[in-house]
């Protein structure tokens, strides 16, 4: 993807100097051309405490700048375009270049008139020679496959346009995925079309070929005695075929060794299950049967980094859905770094990573704890009581990044509470060859250092970047005579290896993999490998009798062992359905877990500054570093984009005398790294959380290179999860973090500011503009289960989390009645359609805030569906990110233990839309079915519409963000959506291309559009069914039913914009003892 860099001279107008890599852009950041500064408030704890003191009411806030209500923030608000105006005259730094711009602009305007008259160039048509029989050009086809991920394969259904995959979605027929997906799986599409992928086999820096590698490798291995000195270092294996192939290799070469290594692995649960049950097991949780869910540092709503994210999120949200007469589950989360899971929880306890083990052990033993968080004991008592009350109907989930002691405690708790067999079942591991990866890697490095390793073949791993720093992998690597690297990118490891083999993407190759529930999916290629490429299957096959046997044949051979019945039929069915029936794991009887050894249990904190290593919520362990969609995606909770930071609590920042957004240096065991500082509400004190996966070197590619800092350089093999005894010192200068939080408050102007200065009900305490509005104007509404039982109409009448009827705005935040308007007949969409003589269609959306878990899947799905460009770090910093959909996070209450509410916000398709009234050229207009559409060709870029939009959901192409040049990215685009150019406004279209396609199908069949015919991209991706779309005039439709619920409310309804998207107010189920 392309990042827009800095224009350097006046005649290079519009700043379209395009730099290939982020590294370049960063290098030029010193030149004062593109404005990237946001005036950052320098907060002190005292200031904020003073603000918070004596405050009792509910408080919403969105970011700390606002919270502090600093003069800088007011200054920012006073500007119409705050971030673009900061630091002087904006993009045109000096008057000379501005004048130059106007001059050239005048000339180009004159030319523009003529340009409209030029003819289009001749367009060639390249028909097929023999057209594939089942291909209808322009009609997409769908194929089932699966995305192999270390925590279990994600079954997907790939939309293919003329055999080019253009969208990856969940497989609706899969028993586990049920059509849902997540941010990372969605983004694997861009990963495949990544123009920086490795395209050749490389031998010592020169292009070579696969055949040479095969012969050299096979010959060399044959010469060894039984494979002595041949080592494989593989990514986590979930493929039964690869495991089978390895078994064959091992039979032929018993001395060859295979080590699996992932920087983010499941070692804790492996170690704990071995200790408790004597063998490695995976745990599967059945949340649909759990009334009380306890997460011990498990971010099971955050994404596929947690095994079983899809079924867990779906079951959680179903259990958390409110319906009169139906019970609701209750979620407790004990964690260190705040996650979306923590914020969805009714009760969250922030603890240092070392204390989580203590807490878990105490919970298992029923003993008491004294921890740094004073609420811990109260939390523990209430939690234990609640668990005991719900024995057999509760579940304790330990996080993969929590220590083995936490897993041991969870085993003990689930066993003693009688959950095993009900809400928890233990099964074989998804990985056919489970191992403790750090220990294995350590042994491998020892062998490398000892000169035992002759051939090191690395399959899809990047140990140069990810190996623990203390292992000195690079030094050991040099001692290996021949290294071979199979990877999709010529990455940090590949560029130093003797051999590099370009790896196929999963969308290009045959394989198979097990999902969380054990179900096997066949991975089938969607496209011929773009750059040739080989898979791990091919590499292992090289050592076997039939080295040319394809991955397809290998997979078929293994499939014969797990496909029952007639193979040909079973195979076709498996390919069609995307899964093999009867391969799900059966529950395993494991017996009572053995008590953990005292050594494991005694993990205590020394009280020093801890540092916790977490996979990045978007980039995971760094494998997605070159995927622009995920880099730009605002991270869950922090809203960081294109950056990672030393995340800490307010108090820690204050005690350590650090500046938010300032530079600092972390030192751990003599290793140092320079980091930016960012405060995260709810973060425990005396801990710094760092996200792995950033700070890739230039080999990562044009997007990923040089983004953030590399936290792997601090991580050691002995303490890969968290480490004690870190030091952090302040450095001079600011880091200029890229955070998207404040973008939506742009352009609000004096009206909102007045509201901030002269609040009507919120007369004391902290003001945060967005937060204040969220409360006073009832943007977020929720109530407790008790309240909603008493008053189901709380969303319109008020509850503890819903403030209505208090403000002098319009008629109390409610939609004005039609008869209150001067135009009572306007916006009437209940007309008869003259063509069908039925009630016309009126499209609308409903989003259940109770179900939204803030996982970002919808945003990435929208990227793929609507050809949304990636704009780059500098542009995101000035608020020009182009996502049509954002998830607003509203924090509430106490800084130390805030609640948070997630609200997906996209174009609301107002019936009485303000944007339409101010457009001078009619570029945004209303359709008869009530869509608010953008006509890109009419747009002249005045941006008046965006100014007049109260929801701030319109995005403007300030520069040419879409990549018109890179060939591989052209393949990826959705052919049904225009690729927007510079100077036009864009926004959510309710996936109008899908609406039109459904309309055409229905019209051809002479029928009305059925409910469910149209599924928007965000709705399709949503793992929790939070988003529903349909015809609101059809009273039987899902969306109409949701909108008829009492909890349904529009945001900022009092403006009489009549939004078509409405929200369902949340309901929480807190424990009265902790309330």
């Amino acid at each position: 993807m392309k990042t827009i860099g800095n224009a350097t001279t006046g005649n290079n107008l519009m700043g379209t100097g395009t730099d290939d890599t982020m590294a370049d852009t960063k290098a030029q950041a010193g030149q004062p051309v593109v404005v990237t500064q946001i005036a950052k408030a320098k907060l002190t704890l005292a200031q904020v405490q003073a603000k918070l003191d004596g405050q009792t009411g509910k408080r919403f806030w969105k970011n700390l700048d606002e919270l502090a209500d600093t003069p800088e923030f007011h200054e920012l608000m006073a500007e119409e375009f705050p971030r673009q105006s900061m630091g002087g005259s904006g993009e045109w730094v000096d008057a000379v270049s501005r004048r130059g711009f106007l001059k050239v602009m005048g000339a180009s305007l004159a030319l523009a008139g003529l340009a409209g008259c030029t003819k289009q160039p001749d367009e060639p048509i390249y028909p097929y020679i023999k057209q594939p029989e089942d291909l209808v050009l322009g009609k997409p086809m769908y194929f089932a496959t699966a995305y192999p991920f270390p925590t279990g394969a994600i079954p997907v259904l790939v939309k293919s346009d003329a055999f080019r995959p253009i969208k990856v979605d969940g497989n609706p027929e899969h028993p586990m995925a049920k059509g849902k997906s997540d941010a990372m799986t969605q983004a694997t599409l861009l990963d495949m079309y990544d123009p920086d992928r490795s395209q050749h086999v490389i031998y010592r820096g020169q292009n070579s070929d696969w055949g040479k590698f095969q012969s050299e490798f096979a010959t060399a291995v044959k010469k060894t005695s039984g494979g002595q000195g041949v080592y494989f270092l593989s990514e986590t294996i979930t493929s039964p075929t690869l495991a089978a192939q390895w078994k064959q290799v091992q039979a032929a070469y018993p001395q060859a060794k295979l080590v699996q290594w992932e920087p983010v692995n499941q070692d804790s649960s492996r170690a704990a299950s071995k200790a408790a049950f004597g063998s490695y097991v995976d745990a599967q949780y059945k949340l649909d049967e759990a009334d009380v869910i306890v997460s011990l540092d498990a971010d099971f709503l955050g994404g596929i980094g947690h095994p079983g994210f899809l079924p867990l999120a779906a079951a959680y949200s179903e259990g958390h859905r409110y319906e009169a007469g139906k019970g609701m589950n209750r979620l407790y989360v004990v964690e260190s770094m705040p996650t979306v899971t923590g914020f969805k929880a009714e009760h969250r306890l922030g603890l240092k990573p070392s204390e989580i083990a203590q807490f878990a052990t105490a919970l298992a033993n029923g003993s008491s704890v004294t921890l740094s968080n004073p609420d811990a004991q109260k939390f523990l008592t209430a939690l234990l009581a609640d668990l005991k009350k719900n024995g057999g109907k509760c579940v304790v989930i330990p996080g993969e990044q929590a220590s083995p002691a936490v897993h041991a405690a969870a085993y003990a708790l689930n066993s003693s509470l009688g959950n095993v067999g009900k809400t928890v079942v233990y099964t074989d591991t998804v990985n056919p060859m489970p191992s403790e990866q750090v220990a294995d890697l350590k042994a491998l490095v020892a062998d490398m250092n000892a000169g035992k390793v002759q051939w090191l073949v690395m399959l899809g791993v990047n140990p140069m970047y990810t190996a623990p720093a203390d292992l000195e992998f690079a030094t050991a690597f040099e001692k290996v005579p021949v290294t071979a690297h199979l990877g999709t990118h010529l990455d940090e490891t590949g560029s130093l290896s003797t051999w590099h083999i370009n790896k196929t993407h999963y969308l290009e190759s045959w394989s198979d993999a097990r999902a969380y529930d054990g179900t096997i999916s066949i991975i089938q290629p969607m496209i011929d490998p773009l750059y040739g490429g080989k898979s791990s299957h091919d590499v292992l096959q090289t050592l076997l009798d039939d080295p040319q046997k394809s991955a397809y044949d290998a997979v078929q051979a293994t499939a014969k062992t797990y496909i029952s019945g007639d193979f040909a039929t079973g195979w076709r069915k498996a390919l069609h359905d995307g899964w093999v029936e009867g391969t799900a794991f059966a529950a395993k009887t494991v017996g009572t877990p053995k008590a953990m050894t005292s050594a494991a249990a005694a993990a205590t904190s020394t009280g020093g500054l801890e540092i916790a290593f977490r996979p990045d919520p978007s980039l995971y362990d760094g494998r997605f570093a070159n995927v622009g969609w995920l880099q730009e995606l605002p991270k869950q909770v922090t809203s960081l984009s294109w950056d990672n930071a030393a995340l800490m609590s307010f108090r820690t920042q204050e005690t350590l005398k650090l500046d938010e957004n300032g530079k600092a240096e972390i030192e751990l065991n003599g290793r140092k790294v320079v980091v930016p500082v960012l405060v995260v509400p709810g973060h425990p004190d005396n801990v710094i959380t760092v996200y792995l996966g950033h700070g890739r070197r230039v080999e990562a590619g044009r997007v990923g290179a040089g983004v953030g800092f590399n936290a792997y350089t601090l991580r050691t093999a002995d303490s890969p999860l968290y480490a004690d005894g870190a030091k952090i010192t302040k450095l001079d200068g600011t880091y200029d973090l890229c955070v998207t939080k404040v973008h939506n408050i742009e352009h609000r102007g004096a009206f909102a500011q007045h509201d901030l200065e002269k609040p009507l009900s919120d007369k004391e305490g902290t003001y945060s503009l967005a937060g204040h509005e969220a409360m006073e104007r009832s943007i977020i509404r929720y109530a407790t289960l008790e309240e909603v039982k008493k008053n189901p109409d709380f969303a319109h009448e008020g509850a503890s989390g819903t403030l209505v009827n208090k403000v002098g705005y319009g008629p109390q935040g409610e939609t004005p009645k039609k008869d209150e308007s001067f135009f009572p007949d306007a916006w009437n969409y209940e007309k008869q359609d003259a063509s069908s003589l039925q009630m016309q269609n009126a499209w609308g959306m409903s989003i259940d805030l109770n179900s939204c878990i803030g996982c970002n899947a919808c945003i990435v799905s929208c990227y793929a569906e609507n050809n949304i460009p990636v704009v780059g770090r500098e542009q995101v910093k000035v608020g020009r990110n182009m996502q049509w959909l954002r998830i607003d996070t509203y924090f509430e209450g106490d800084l130390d233990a805030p609640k948070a509410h997630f609200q997906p916000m996209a174009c609301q398709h107002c019936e009485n839309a303000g944007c339409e009234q101010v457009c001078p050229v009619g570029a945004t207009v209303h359709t008869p079915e009530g869509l608010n559409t953008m006509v890109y060709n009419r747009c002249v870029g005045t941006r008046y519409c965006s100014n007049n939009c109260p929801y701030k959901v319109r995005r403007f192409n300030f520069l040419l963000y879409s990549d018109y040049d890179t060939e591989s990215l052209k393949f990826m685009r959705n052919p049904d959506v225009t690729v927007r150019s510079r100077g036009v406004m864009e926004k959510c279209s309710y996936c109008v291309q899908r609406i039109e396609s459904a309309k055409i199908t229905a019209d051809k069949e002479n029928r009305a559009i059925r409910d469910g015919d149209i599924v928007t991209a965000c709705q399709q991706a949503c793992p929790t069914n939070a988003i529903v779309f349909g015809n609101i005039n059809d009273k039987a439709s899902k969306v109409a039913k949701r909108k008829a619920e009492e909890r349904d409310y529009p945001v900022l309804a009092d403006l009489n914009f009549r939004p078509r998207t409405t929200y369902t107010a949340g309901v929480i189920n807190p424990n009265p003892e902790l309330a």
Partner: protein
Amino acid sequence: MAQVFDRSSNALVRFSLVLTGLIVISLGVALDQLQRSPWVTRQGQRPDQPVPFSHKHHVEGLGLQCQYCHTQVEKAAYAGIPPTKTCINCHAQIWTNAALLEPVRQSWATGASIQWIRVHDLPDYVYFNHDIHVNKGIGCASCHGRVDEMPLMYQQNTLQMEWCLNCHRNPGVNLRPVSEIYNMSWAGPSTDKPVWCSSTVKGGATAQNVSCTTTNPGANGPEVAMLENGPHGPGRTESADLGPLMGVAIPASYQKFTSQAELGKYLTAQYHIRTPNELSSCETCHR
């Protein structure tokens, strides 16, 4: 001091004012005309194609059906350009040595596409869809003209937005029975050549909704009409309970049309053509 401008220059000033106005207006008119001219729209232009394919010869001369080559016109947005295989189906047997067909044989031998030049080239931001037009009674010739009389393919109409909207605002003028879609010489009903239409069973695809004929179903007796069209139009044969006597009633349900306006109105209702308001809404063609 003498006047710099004598009185006669007043006239000159007036004249130049008028002249300026005229120049501005004529410039505007010229640009407008230019924009609509075939130079810009390519109306009527015959680009140099690798093979001088004659639709006239193949359609009028040999009687090939449109869909023999444009296979997916009823199924997808694109009508489809035939693969080389389609040419070779016949040209492996006939004209096997014709010099004109060298590119086809080349393509077949080498596996490289024949590079046609697109004649009907809509801008990329227009999402035109063939299947809905064809399924709703817009004939090929309505947009593409008498392709059967074109030795070399050219664009009959401007394909400009105003041309699209002319029909989207009043689709009735171009509607014809779906059975006549591929009829190049369909001229619409007139007093000399009336059209009789009858609505069949409700429901099902558009094409099955109406049965039309250009021969008077009453003249030859109802049985002939029955034989021609079946009791419920082409494609519907399940009428076990309908005895032959039931067919007698059919001519009564046939309506006679003597003008396109009447027929258009009738078909608009029968085919459930969306209203002009909806058809001319932006999102119909632009996304």
